[in-house]
Each structure stands twice: as structure tokens, then as C-alpha cells.
């Protein structure tokens, strides 16, 4: 066969194969294009889903619901009790990028009504305006910036079944008022709060005890507003130092001419380094006027110190010594002293079980206390 003819025959023989290769190449190109398009579609879909899930409006669009609660068993010389002490629901909503609403509604002692010791309380309900990245204005009903547990009081955040007595009878937590508060966060871990708010209304009938003067912003007398200032430093991990001063022109809202103004000052420290921690607080009220002075209530004060050890994430141990007196003036009585020793067990960071032994001077409130608490 002549060479030209051989080439022709070979070419004719390979023609189907070349056509097949060309077809395969085109098919691969088509598949690659389809694959590219599918990838692009998948990326676009993922971007859209992530955008929806991650956008600030998604997080702020709805009402946020949370809360906390605690149940307590007390086996004291004075008697035994089981009490679902607090059931608190939190509702919040970011109204706009810079305005949010926050609130806490509490049911105390499980039942509220004429024949029950419980109560339904509005503990917080305020609008917070972010004036800039470091300044927030609160208006409405808010917690007074004083002491350790008044603002941060979920049961998972402190030792002992009940809150420290000094913070109950002297601060007096849980203490909320209506008004306006400006919070400014400064550099170096400093922050300042200045608040003008409704005040207390104590009376001679209750020996001017501070705790009984809380009006709870329930048709509260507002003849005498109070002004509060707090300076706080949290410039190191595990460290908080703070001091509060509050002044009210008339602690009885003009109801008692024998009484007058009142000043609270308090200071506290929280130190946590590794497994070791300590909390300490001191607070004192000074009440003007002959009425408080006559019953020794012109000075009301207390302090406590609470060393703690948390060797494991889930277990913590503490001891606390505290002393307080709502009649610490010259004409008053003796201080009450109390010691607590106990353990907290956190099976989850938002769940706690507590057990402790308590001994109190001049009372039959000695005994064992158990508690459970949660935060949602």
C-alpha cells in the first residue's frame, strides 16, 4: 500500500476515536461548568443562610427570655422549712441598635395572695440608651449600684443558700428604685455610675430599719429623691473593687419631723486568683435627726468576709463571718454575728446545689441549709 493511501486509511480508522475523545472532552467541560455553578450556588446559599442567622437584627429582633430561681430547705433550731424562694423571669428586647429594654419579674415563695407570704415583684424594668460605645443611660426601674449581690444575684454566682445578711439588712438587697442612671466605662478598668432615683421611706414604727423603708416603686412617695454614685475598678482578672455613696434628703419622705437625711456608704472587694477567692464588704448608714438617734438607729452598719476555695471547676467551699446592727448608735444594741461554712456543687455552670451549716448569735437560727438554683 502506498504511504499516502496508508495515512488515509489510518486517519479514517481513527476518526471515530477522535470524535469519541472530543465528545468526552466536551462532556467533562460541561460537568466542570455544572460543578462550578453548583459550587457557586452552594456558596451563595450558605452566605444567605449565614447572613440571616448572624445578622444583628436576627439576634435583636425578638424578645429574649431568661431567668433564674432557687429552692431552699432550712433545718434550723427555730424550725424546718422548704421554700421555692425565687422564680424570676427575664424579658429583654433590643428595640433599636442603641436602645434596649430589660426587665425581671419575680414570684417569691411560690404563691402570692392574702393568705400567703409570697409576692409578685417587678424587680427591673428599664430602657437603656447607648449614648456612645462607653456610656449608657438607664431610665425606669433599676437595681441600685451598691454592694456585691444587689446587681449580680443569680444563685449560681454566690456561695451560701441565702445572700449575706449584711447585704440584706444594711444595703438592703434586692433593692430597686425608679429614676435615671448614667454609666460611664473609662479606660484602665474603671467605671462610674451616677443615679438619681426614688428614695426610702423609713419610719419610727419600724425603728427606722433601712430594709423596711423600701417602697419598691409602688406608688412610692417621691418628696425626697436620692442620689447615688459608684466608682468601680475591674482592671485585673478576678479583681473587683468598688465604693458607693448614696444621699437622701429625708429618709422618711417628710412623714417624720424627728428624722432627716441619710447617707449610705459601702465598699467591697472581690479577689479571685486560681482556686482561691475572697469577698469582703463593709457598709454603713448614718441617719440624721433625733428620732433615729433616740432608738440607736442613727448608725446602721455591717461587714463580712468570705474566703473560698474552688479546687475543681464543679466544687467550691467557703466560710463566711459577718456582723451587722440596725441599731449601732449610742442608744442601740449589740451586733448580730453569724458564721457560715458550706459547699457549692455546679454540675453545669448554670446550675448549683448548695449545703451549709450556719450559726448566729442571740438567735435560734442555727442549723443546716440546703439549696438548689439555676440560671436560664
Amino acid at each position, binding site marked *: 500500500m502506498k504511504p499516502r493511501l496508508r495515512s488515509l486509511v489510518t486517519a479514517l480508522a481513527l476518526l471515530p476515536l477522535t470524535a469519541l475523545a472530543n465528545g468526552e472532552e466536551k462532556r467533562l467541560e460541561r460537568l466542570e461548568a455544572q460543578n462550578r455553578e453548583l459550587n457557586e450556588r452552594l456558596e451563595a446559599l450558605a452566605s444567605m443562610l449565614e447572613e440571616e442567622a*448572624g445578622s444583628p437584627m436576627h439576634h435583636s429582633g425578638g424578645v429574649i427570655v431568661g431567668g433564674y430561681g432557687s429552692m431552699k430547705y432550712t433545718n434550723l433550731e427555730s424550725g424546718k422549712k422548704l421554700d421555692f424562694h425565687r422564680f424570676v423571669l427575664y424579658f*429583654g428586647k433590643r428595640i433599636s441598635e442603641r436602645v*434596649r429594654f430589660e426587665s425581671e419579674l419575680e414570684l417569691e415563695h411560690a404563691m402570692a395572695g392574702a393568705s400567703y407570704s409570697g409576692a409578685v415583684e417587678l424587680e427591673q424594668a428599664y430602657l437603656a440608651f447607648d*449614648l456612645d460605645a462607653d456610656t449608657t443611660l438607664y431610665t425606669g426601674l433599676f437595681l441600685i449600684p451598691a454592694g456585691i449581690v444587689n446587681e449580680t444575684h443569680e444563685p449560681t454566682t454566690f456561695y451560701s443558700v441565702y445572700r449575706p445578711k449584711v447585704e440584706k439588712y444594711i444595703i438592703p438587697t434586692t433593692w430597686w428604685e425608679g429614676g435615671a*442612671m448614667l454609666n460611664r466605662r473609662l479606660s484602665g478598668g474603671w467605671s462610674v455610675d451616677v443615679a*438619681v432615683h426614688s428614695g426610702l421611706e423609713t419610719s419610727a414604727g419600724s425603728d427606722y430599719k433601712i430594709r423596711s423603708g423600701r417602697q419598691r416603686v409602688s406608688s412610692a412617695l417621691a418628696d425626697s429623691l436620692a*442620689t447615688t454614685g459608684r466608682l468601680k475598678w475591674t482592671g485585673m482578672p478576678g479583681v473587683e473593687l468598688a465604693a458607693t455613696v448614696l444621699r437622701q434628703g429625708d429618709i422618711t419622705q417628710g412623714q417624720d419631723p424627728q428624722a432627716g437625711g441619710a447617707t449610705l456608704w459601702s465598699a467591697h472587694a472581690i479577689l*479571685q486568683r486560681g482556686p482561691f477567692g475572697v469577698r469582703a464588704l463593709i457598709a454603713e448608714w448614718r441617719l440624721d435627726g433625733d428620732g433615729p438617734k433616740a432608738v440607736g438607729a442613727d448608725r446602721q452598719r455591717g461587714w463580712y468576709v468570705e474566703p473560698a476555695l474552688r479546687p475543681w471547676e464543679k466544687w467550691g467551699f467557703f466560710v463566711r463571718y459577718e456582723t451587722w446592727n440596725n441599731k449601732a448608735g449610742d442608744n442601740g444594741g449589740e451586733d448580730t454575728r453569724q458564721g457560715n461554712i458550706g459547699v457549692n456543687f455546679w454540675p453545669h455552670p448554670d446550675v448549683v446545689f448548695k449545703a451549709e451549716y450556719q450559726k448566729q448569735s442571740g438567735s435560734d437560727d442555727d442549723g443546716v441549709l440546703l439549696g438548689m438554683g439555676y440560671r436560664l
Partner: protein
Amino acid sequence: MSPLPLPSWILALLLLSPMGVGAAEQVFLEPGRFLRQAFDGDPPPPKVLWLTGERRKQVSRILGHPPPKLRVRYWLRGQRSAWILEEIGKERPITVGIVIEDDRVVEVRVLVYRESRGHEVRHPFFTRQFEGARLKQGDKLDRRIDGISGATLSVRALKRLVRLALWLHREVSR
């Protein structure tokens, strides 16, 4: 009518001050700048890791909830990786930049903070605690991180993100 006492005037002034509300979001470090710092001014091109299947389950376990994203972008050169991750403390996402090298934390930076409480976590005195940390058994951090009073939820969010970055680094560098 008696003149208003001083506290009333202060209260009135405070109540009028929202008229000039400003920005709530605070950007401490632009992500691009964070990446340049992490890679000596020359970051590698980003890569994408899909959070699907078993990987999604592991990420959910570390975060305590399913991740809001299907993919994570990351930057990898040799044994060093950088991650820009987001997690909600209480209400709004905190954006955090994390650099990992040889399975250890090199740096943690809060890039954008949007929460209403807990802003202290942005300070180096807090984030420095993570430097050198690595994962131990159970994908926990090998060290105790001291918290900040009143910033519990933001502290927990940062701890979760650092654990996640360490775990993801292990995924992409093996």
C-alpha cells in the same frame, strides 16, 4: 410652688440626654489589621472549612449549641493559623480574632464588642491569660482562666471560642 431640689434637676438632665444616642458597637481592631499582625504583614489567602457531618457535631459540643454558620474562614501558613470567630455572650455576638501555632494559643484579640455588659473582656489583662493555652482531654483548656465579676457570660463566650479555635486548628493542620 417650691423650687425643684438638685436631684430633680439632675434627673431631668439625665432623662433628656438620650437625644444624642451614639454607636453601641465598638470596633477595637479591624479584622484585616488583625490578620496582617498575625502573619507579619503578609497574610495567606483565606481557606474555607465546612462545618458539616461529624465536624458540626463536635463544634456544637464545644459551643454548647449548633454553630450559626455553615463554614468557617481561616488563614493557614505552616503550623500557624488565624481564626475570626463570633459567639454570643448574652445577647449579641462578640467578634474575636485568635492565632494558633503548634496547637497552642499565640494571641486572642476582641475585634468587635456588641454586648451591653462585660466589656472588660476586651482588655489585654484578660485575654493574655489564654496565651500558651492548649486543649487537654475532653477538649477543655489546660489552664484556669480567672473571670471578671459581672462579665460572666462574655468570659464564657471567649473561653468557648478559644477552645473552638484550638480544635479547628487541629482539624486543618493534621
